[in-house]
């Protein structure tokens, strides 16, 4: 993904890049090697946005203040849009199921699988 494309996809989320999003993005890049090269950055960014998003919201922990919740919502929405633009239907569905699983566990106060584990599984969906 060119720097310009990353910049566009981070519109309004720029501040998160230096606060852990960049690091997560790089870590997910290592998990998307089986996909087409041009898709890899988008998939990695989508996964990183989900992980940052649920963290910002405080999902499964203490509720975030409204401003952080809205920022987390935007991360999830952006991730979803990136996936619809570039990922296959099974991956879109698997990402959604990952968030359903996390949110369902959070609402039930049961232990959820690690976010990363769920998202890596979603990235492998086909």
């Amino acid at each position: 993904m060119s720097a310009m494309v990353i910049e566009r996809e981070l519109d309004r989320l720029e501040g998160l890049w230096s606060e852990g999003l960049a690091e997560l993005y790089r870590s997910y890049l290592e998990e998307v090697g089986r996909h087409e090269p041009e898709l890899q950055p988008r998939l990695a960014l989508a996964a990183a946005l989900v992980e940052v998003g649920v963290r910002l919201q405080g999902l499964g922990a203490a509720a975030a203040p409204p401003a952080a919740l809205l920022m987390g919502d935007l991360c999830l929405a952006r991730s979803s849009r990136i996936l619809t633009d570039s990922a296959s239907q099974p991956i879109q569905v698997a990402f959604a199921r990952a968030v359903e699983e996390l949110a369902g566990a959070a609402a039930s106060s049961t232990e959820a699988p690690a976010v990363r584990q769920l998202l890596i599984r979603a990235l492998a969906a086909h």
Partner: protein
Amino acid sequence: MIAHRLRFESTHPTQFIDLTDRIRDEVRRSGLTAGRIHLQSLHTTLGLAVNENEPLLLRDFAGLLERLAPGDGTYEHDDFTRRIDVASDEPVNGHAHCRQLLLTGFATLLVEDGELVLGRWQSVFAVELDGPRQRQLAFQLDGDFAKRPAAHRDDLVELELTRLLMVDPEPVAAPMRRLMEAGGKRLRPRLVQLTAQLGPQYEPLRTAGLAAAVEILHNATLVHDDYVDESTHRRGRPTVAAAEGPERAIAVGDYYFAKATRLIAETGNNDVTQTIAAALEAICESQIDDVALRGAFPGDHDSYLRVVRGKTAALFAAACASGAQLSKAGPEVVDALWRYGDLLGVAFQMADDMVDFSPSSGKPVGLDIRQRVLSLPLIYAAEDREVGPEVRRLLAGALGDDEVARVAQLVASSPALQRVGDEARGLVEEAVRELEKVELNGLRPTLIGLARAAVDRDS
């Protein structure tokens, strides 16, 4: 009277296409109990016939047409050197026009006890004479209708919502069920259902699934909104955040946000998925703007429009466009419906703002003032020469019961509500003009009525 179009595709130069089942379905769906269905071919090389669907007989008919107007015969219509204004893709089809003259382009069938009246061997055919082509028949149903002809469609969405929530974990399903059961206008799913009838591939069950997913998505955003706005009640009941705590509200919102996007992805229609995803992103961005603007409360008209276009209108527009996309309507229809939904959404929000000042709405007056929510009547009142200074002074300070009541009184006494009402109705008329630009299979009056009703309300 109900008017509609029946679209289909022929695959052969001459073809008898049996439309009996589709016409029966239209009659049943319409709720017509006793009356008539009028059919009209919209083409000069497509006829109509009521006859027996027996393959050898259909070959006899084709043979008869060939003998009476042979395909390799000479027709003056095909001599392009003698015709004016001949299109570059004009087909050589004099034989097809002549054959159509032997058939009819019209048919009226009777309906009794909610069923098409046909003899044992009778079938209704569209007769293709110059295929293969995309074709359409206009039809009108008139007579006595069951009281709620749309009930089936509405019921389908409610059933789908019930079914979808039934399989979810109770900690998320119970609060969402309470929110859904408390009411809501179900405008967005209604728009999906209407616009999904415009393309050639209308599938009621698939449409109900998309409509339900859009409604779930809308309600998921409300769950988070209520936490952000610190609202204690919605639709007369405690909000999820108030009843279950903010942690649960965040989880419920996330769960249904994800579930709705999954259901939409599972439609397998990428245009639909992209339309909804773009709307969701616009909603989230404008929520951030909305909260940011509360520092400059009550804001200005341009900021208001920017926020409302994302916060409310984006999902209206997406509902309209995605229904049409699901049924494979043409891009010009999808675009016109998107613009209609966008304008309707803004007008709807303006009407919603006015409800906050209506004592007959059943809601506490001045809730938007108390919560410092962006509201056009407040913006106009703050700009007003007479009441503006006092409104601005009150809004700049702490807002207790007395201040809220006074601001509401000042807004009601100013021309602000009238201005907002006029603006909302103007937007609806603009939305209606968008509908005039495209073919809408007889649904235009319904969409116009829905738009006008959305702004002429007090709840």
